[in-house]
Every structure is written in structure tokens, then in C-alpha cells.
């Protein structure tokens, strides 16, 4: 790796490692106790910051919009939404795919980067996993309320019943049930297993008796035994190894909801990889949306450093390029297939009455991020990345909007053409899930360790075991 910074420049940023010219993953000068106190202190402090309470009230207020919208939906039925024939899939499916895509970066960070031994991910994996779970919670709401009679939602599962009917496993919608429920379960288990040692730390550092009981029970009596650690590490690696194909399969199955249908614009083989790349793209954008304010507010710049922002921006650049490839292949195939329907679909998508959505998608998903993220200066600029993360997630939402709506509203028979207009209830439900997501996330940062303490300890230079060394072991000499 090229050294970008002079070796002995006194003006050099202390966060830059002089040997590599890269930003350090953790700021120098930390030891086991200081990182423990820093992270545990956020949770164990007795005074709750006022902005947190304010944020919780605002998020709760927005989440109540969701409750109102769903209550009205249960009273009146899905007729209050904009879905109709031919546009039978509207906001519910768009938002479902969007939210679940956001969740995928959490699994990618916690599982795939663990397998690749990317230790920098240790600072961000816990709240990325939390983001996954809360995004899946929001995503799961939409198919549930979209089924028409949500109180019969459990019919989707294969359970013995007096009607003697069973699910039909040739249908992608049955696959969805299995994929999403497995994803939610494994994500929660992975998240919880990751937190067990940290709960032990919190139990031992808590001063309030209630906190001691609460974290003590959650810690399952964790005591850091070496034999436990070895089994624990094995289980974590295996869970990572299992979550990796899982996360790829979940968005693949979701893309099958479209690709299996014989609709122009949906029936393509590029969908699974292009959906997965898009999911990771939007998910990393959401991690940036969450990480940048959190590191600022809780003064975690030592642990979530510019290196993390830089690396996440690089992942976004790579996945954004894959998404761009997906878009160009769609256009190419619609011409190369020589299919009249495919050709018309693409023309209609670009220049039809909803063409603005397509150009919005190209602007926000490709034009803005893929031109600017090449610059290292912008990749380490937290303000820019924070704004960009909203741009990208807008783009990813429009991608799903374009896919769902433009294929449906002008299908094979011009006589059956229609249009799609979302109603205020559609918007209210969607905005409400943002509130729900933020509400859950705020509870998480207050009550659970948002950075894995034990994994941060492993990144410190003091972990090095020297068999014949003396007392010098405690001294911080070099960064690993």
C-alpha cells in the first residue's frame, strides 16, 4: 500500500497510521479498561441525555402514524390504499423490499466481513446487526398488512389445521415466508449471542441493582471461561458462515417474487445478483445514516474512525457499480431480446408518464454517488457521507418503485392499462415505519451495548501474548 503521508511530519493527523498512510481503526492510547468504560458508560449512566428523550418522543410520534394508518386499514380494508388493478402491488411491496434490503448490510458486516477477517468491522457490527433486526421488523409489517386479512396471517405457515389445507410450495410467496422468518430468527440469535459477553461486562460494571439483575439474566451467567470462549468463538464463526449464504438467499428469494412472474421487466435472470447488490448498497447507506450522528453525539470518534467511514464508502462504491451494471443490463437485454413487450416496457419506464421516477433513480443512485465516491477527500467527509446516505436510500426506494409500478401499470393489453397513485394512507404507513425504526434504534443505543466491547478489546495491541517478555507487555508500543 502506498504511503500517502510523510513519515515524520509533525503536522500529521494523529489518527493516521504513519506506516500505511491509512486512518487507524481505533485511536491510539486506549486500553482494555478505557474502551470498556467508554462503551459501557453510555448504557450504565444514570442520566439520560435530553436529546435522546426528545428523539424518542418525536420518533414515537411518527411511529403512532403507523398505528393510526394500520388501525384504519383494519377497519376499512386495503381499499384505502392506492393498489388496484392493474397496479396490484404498490407501496406495501416497495417498502417491504426497501426495508429488507437495508437490513442486509447488517448481516454483511457482521457475517461476511468476519469471515474475511476484516477486523475494522468490529466497531460497527453490533449496531449494524440491530439495524438489520429493526429493518426486518419494519419490512415484515408490510406483507402482513398487505395480505388483506392480517388476523389470518398465520395461514402462511404450514401448521396442522382443521381445514386440512397446506401451503403451496411452488409459489415464491411461500418461499418468502420461509426466507424472511429464517432471516429474522437467525439475525436475532446472532445478535444476542454476540452480546452475551458484553452483558457479562455490563452486569459487573452496573451499580443499580435493577441493572445488575437485568444484565445478569441476559448474560446467562457469562464468566469469561476460556473453554466457553473457544466454543463461543466457534459458534460465532459458524453462525457467520450460515448467515452469509442466508443473506444472499433472502434477497434472491425476494427477487424471485418478481423474476418468477411472466411480466416484462420482471422476468429476468439478472434479478437475484442485482437485488443483493442493491440491498447491500442501501444497507451501507443506512449504516452511515446511523453511525455518523451516533459517533458525533456519543463522542465515539475514537472507535468509529474515519477509516470506517472510508471503508463503508468504498463498499458503497463497489456495490453501486454492480447496481449500475444491473441497470445497464436491463436496458441492453430489453433491446437484445427483440421482445416487443420488453422493448415497450423499457421505453415506457424511461419516457412514459412515470419516466421521472426512472431518471430520479439514475440521478440519486448512480449519477451522484458513483461520481463523487472516488474522491478520498469526500469519503472521509462525514457531513458529505451523511447527506449522500439519504440520497442513496432515496434512489434505492425509487428503484423498487420503478420495478414494481412501471411493469404493472402498462402490461400486455393496452385496454387494461391504468395508473398508480399512492394515497395518504400509503404515505402515512411508510413514514410511520421510519418512526418505528428510529424508536427501536433509540431504545437500543440507550439500553444495549452498541459497540461490541469484547471485540474492540481484541483489536488493542495489548492482546499480544509474549511468552518470554517482561513487564513491558502493558506498554503500548505499536499498533497491530
Amino acid at each position, binding site marked *: 500500500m502506498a504511503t500517502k503521508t510523510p513519515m515524520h511530519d509533525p503536522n500529521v493527523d494523529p489518527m493516521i497510521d504513519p506506516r500505511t498512510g491509512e486512518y487507524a481503526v481505533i485511536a491510539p492510547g486506549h486500553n482494555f479498561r478505557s474502551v470498556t468504560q467508554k462503551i459501557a458508560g453510555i448504557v450504565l449512566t444514570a442520566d439520560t441525555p435530553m436529546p435522546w428523550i426528545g428523539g424518542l418522543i418525536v420518533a414515537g410520534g411518527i411511529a403512532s402514524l403507523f398505528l393510526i394508518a394500520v388501525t384504519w386499514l383494519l377497519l376499512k380494508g386495503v381499499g384505502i390504499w392506492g393498489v388496484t388493478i392493474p397496479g396490484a402491488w404498490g407501496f406495501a411491496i416497495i417498502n417491504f423490499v426497501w426495508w429488507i434490503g437495508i437490513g442486509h448490510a447488517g448481516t454483511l458486516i457482521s457475517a461476511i466481513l468476519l469471515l474475511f477477517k476484516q477486523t475494522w468491522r468490529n466497531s460497527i457490527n453490533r449496531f449494524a446487526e440491530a439495524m438489520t433486526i429493526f429493518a426486518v421488523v419494519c419490512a415484515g409489517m408490510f406483507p402482513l398488512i398487505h395480505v388483506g386479512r392480517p388476523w389470518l396471517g398465520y395461514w402462511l405457515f404450514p401448521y396442522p389445521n382443521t381445514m386440512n389445507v397446506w401451503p403451496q410450495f411452488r409459489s415464491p410467496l411461500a418461499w418468502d415466508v420461509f426466507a424472511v422468518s429464517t432471516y429474522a430468527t437467525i439475525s436475532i440469535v446472532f445478535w444476542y449471542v454476540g452480546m452475551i459477553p458484553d452483558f457479562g461486562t455490563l452486569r459487573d460494571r452496573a451499580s443499580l441493582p435493577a441493572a445488575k439483575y437485568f444484565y445478569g439474566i441476559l448474560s446467562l451467567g457469562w464468566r469469561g*471461561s476460556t473453554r466457553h*470462549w473457544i466454543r463461543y468463538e466457534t*459458534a460465532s464463526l*459458524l453462525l457467520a458462515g450460515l448467515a452469509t449464504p*442466508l443473506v444472499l438467499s433472502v434477497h434472491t428469494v425476494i427477487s424471485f417474487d418478481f423474476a418468477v412472474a411472466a411480466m416484462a421487466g420482471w422476468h429476468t435472470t439478472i434479478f437475484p445478483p442485482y437485488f443483493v447488490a442493491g440491498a447491500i448498497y442501501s444497507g451501507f447507506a443506512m449504516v452511515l445514516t446511523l453511525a455518523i450522528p451516533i459517533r458525533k453525539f456519543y463522542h465515539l470518534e475514537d472507535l468509529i474512525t474515519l477509516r470506517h467511514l472510508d471503508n463503508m464508502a468504498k463498499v458503497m462504491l463497489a456495490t453501486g457499480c454492480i447496481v449500475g451494471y444491473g441497470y445497464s443490463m436491463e436496458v441492453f437485454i430489453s433491446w437484445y431480446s427483440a421482445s416487443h413487450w420488453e422493448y415497450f416496457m423499457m421505453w415506457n419506464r424511461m419516457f412514459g408518464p412515470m419516466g421521472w421516477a426512472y431518471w430520479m433513480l439514475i440521478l440519486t443512485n448512480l449519477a451522484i454517488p458513483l461520481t463523487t465516491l472516488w474522491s478520498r477527500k469526500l469519503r472521509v467527509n462525514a457531513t458529505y457521507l451523511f447527506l449522500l446516505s439519504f440520497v442513496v436510500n432515496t434512489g434505492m426506494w425509487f428503484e423498487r418503485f420503478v420495478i414494481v409500478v412501471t411493469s404493472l401499470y402498462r402490461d400486455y393489453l393496452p385496454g387494461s392499462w391504468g395508473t398508480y397513485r399512492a394515497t395518504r394512507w400509503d404515505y402515512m404507513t411508510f413514514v410511520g415505519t421510519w418512526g418505528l425504526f428510529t424508536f427501536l434504534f433509540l431504545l437500543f443505543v440507550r439500553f444495549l451495548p452498541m459497540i461490541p466491547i469484547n471485540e474492540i478489546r481484541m483489536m488493542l495491541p495489548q492482546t499480544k501474548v*509474549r511468552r518470554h517478555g517482561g513487564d513491558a507487555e502493558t506498554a503500548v508500543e505499536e499498533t497491530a
Partner: protein
Amino acid sequence: MPVREGIYGLLAEFNTPGELVRATEAARAEGYRRMECYTPYPVEEAADALHFHKNRVPLLTLVGGVMGVTTAFLMETWMNVWSYPLNIAGRPLFSWPAFIIPAYEWTILFAGLSAAFGMMALNGLPQLYHPLFNAPNFRNGATTDKFFLCLEATDPKFAILETRSFLEQFAPASVLEVEL
């Protein structure tokens, strides 16, 4: 030497992982077997010093995965071929390629749950009480920044005075008797 009643073991506290590993290796060489290290993060060298190399979590995970794929595939086949056959656009009742997808998901579900709960079961967790929590310095250090070696009283070689002087030659921060 018979087991002394009322004592779980002797707990030596170290400030660095290197000291812990040296003491553990020496204790193993001395003939101690019933002992355990307690660290704030996984120290692989300590596991090597304890000669703890194999664990059965991978086996349990494999068994779980095989159970998952078998359960899901047989369930789908039975439901869609025999119990409730439906003609969907003339496709064969036994549409095994479509059945692979839920079977794949349940492979991961069962394997993942086996890995997590198998790890807990093999570790004997949840176990909210443990004698070590009685040691006054244990909870301040073992989950934060200290490294502990516990030589347990059930070890045939354990003798309170000799074991204590054995541990003290490694210059630990403290050596404490842990009450049972």
C-alpha cells in the same frame, strides 16, 4: 490429597495475557488438570495451554443442518404430493426444484439454532450462580481487563499451601481462596 470442603479453588489474578499463559503452561506441566482461565476476551494461547482443542459445536451444527434440510424437504413433499395435491398450471406434484428453496432456508435455520443453543448447552449456560462470583476481585476484572487462572480444589494435585506457593512464583497481582 483429599478435597478440602468449602473451597472451590485458588484464583490467581494477572495483569497481562502473557503472564496468564505462562502460569497456565507451568501449571499444566506441573501436573494440574482441573483448572480454567478467565479472560475478558478470547485468548487462544490460554486454550492451547489448557490443551483444549476440540469442541463439539461444529458437530451439533452439522446435525442441526441435516435435520433442517430433511425435515423441510419431506414436509413439503408430503404436503404438496400426498396430503393436499394441487394442480398448479400443470406442473408436476413433486416439484422438487421449487422445494429446495424452503429446504435451504430451514437448513440454515436449524443449523444456526443448533450452533447457538448447542454452544450454550455445552457451556452449561445459563448458570447464573458460580462460586467464582464470590471472589471479590473477579467481577471487577474478568469481564473488563484482568486475566485469571483458577486451580480447582477437585484436582488430585491440589493442596492449599503448595498450590498457593506454586502460583505465587508467577508474581500474580493476587492469589485468593474461592469459597464454594
